[in-house]
């Protein structure tokens, strides 16, 4: 076997990649629409993020191997072991999220869930642009939700910065292009990974339908 013969391996399925890049765009859109005061677009963008989150959680349980939480959420010992190899040269790239990156995904998803949830209950100072679930909380609590909504955005930004820095680190220090992997779904690896399965497209459709239903109910203010 030749030492550095790498093979192109399919790692990320289309739904996972689509969710990833849509979130990138929509977090930007959400920020920008608030900047320019288009709160109607801000809500639409937020609803889209909500749908993507519901789908991603569904996919994290029922999706393909690399998308599943059970495949990439590891205990502290696995994380510590991985961290020790992080700066060592010549480490074989792992198929899918590494133990440290896995937690970054969980943290970003959690921050986004907080972001959207706080937005849904947020009351703005004029009381006209409030979230669709704000009718279930008092004015004061709704204003607090708006404050948390602002706070969690800063947390989200910090996590995104960390995530991007990590990707740059892999690109520069380890010469691994994770960006193209998330675009094409394929990555060069030393060997064909075992045990990577992908979920059938029909299942993605089911997840999308579930996401659409949740968004619909939330938009209607929780009334069916």
């Amino acid at each position, binding site marked *: 076997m030749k030492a550095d013969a790498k093979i192109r391996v399919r790692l990320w399925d289309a739904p996972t990649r689509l969710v990833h890049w849509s979130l990138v765009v929509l977090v930007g859109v959400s920020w920008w629409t608030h900047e320019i005061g288009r709160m109607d677009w801000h809500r639409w963008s937020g609803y889209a993020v909500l749908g993507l989150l519901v789908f991603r959680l569904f996919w994290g349980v029922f999706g393909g191997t690399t998308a599943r939480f059970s495949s990439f959420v590891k205990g502290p010992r696995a994380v510590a072991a991985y961290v020790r190899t992080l700066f060592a040269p010549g480490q074989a790239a792992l198929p899918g999220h590494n133990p440290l990156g896995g937690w970054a995904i969980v943290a970003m998803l959690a921050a986004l869930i907080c972001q959207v949830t706080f937005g849904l209950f947020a009351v703005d100072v*004029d009381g006209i642009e*409030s979230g669709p679930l704000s009718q279930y909380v008092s004015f*004061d609590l709704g204003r607090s939700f708006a404050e948390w909504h602002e706070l969690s955005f800063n947390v989200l930004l910090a996590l995104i910065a960390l995530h991007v820095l990590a990707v740059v680190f892999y690109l520069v220090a380890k010469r691994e292009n994770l960006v193209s992997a998330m675009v094409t779904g394929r990555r060069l690896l030393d060997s064909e990974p075992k045990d990577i399965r992908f979920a059938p497209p029909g299942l993605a459709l089911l997840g999308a339908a579930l996401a659409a239903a949740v968004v619909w109910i939330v938009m209607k203010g929780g009334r069916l």
Partner: protein
Amino acid sequence: MKAGWVGAAAALAVTLTAGVALGQGAADVIKARQQGYKAQGAAFKTINDELKKKDPNIGAIRSSAKAIAETATTQYRWFPRGSGPESGAKTAAKAEIWTDAAGFAAAQKAFQAEAQKLGQAAASGDLKAIRPQVGATGKTCAGCHNKYRVKT
């Protein structure tokens, strides 16, 4: 309704404290003003929440609209000179309120006019008249905030 009482109490507190010399009292004036605006916000939210329901409670809309219309007349006394950022107290009121007094007075007037119409629409109980007037009133809240309130 509750919002109305809070608003009235706050308005009274502002009026009383505005009478005495400011300085030490500025913080109290500001606090009472913010309480008053909070009550405005709560009353306005009540109306908006009711309008989202299939079967809005006209009584709740009416009392909240009344409270807002009443506050629209008392708010003129909420901004005694010295109760701005220069007081050192925590306030979102911009200095422009006093340097651009004519513009601020116009914003207060515009708000009062729309709030009065809202009170009348609510009194009539006609949802078709209330809905657009809620929007028109909200625009005068936002219009004043954009110019004279620090974004927090």
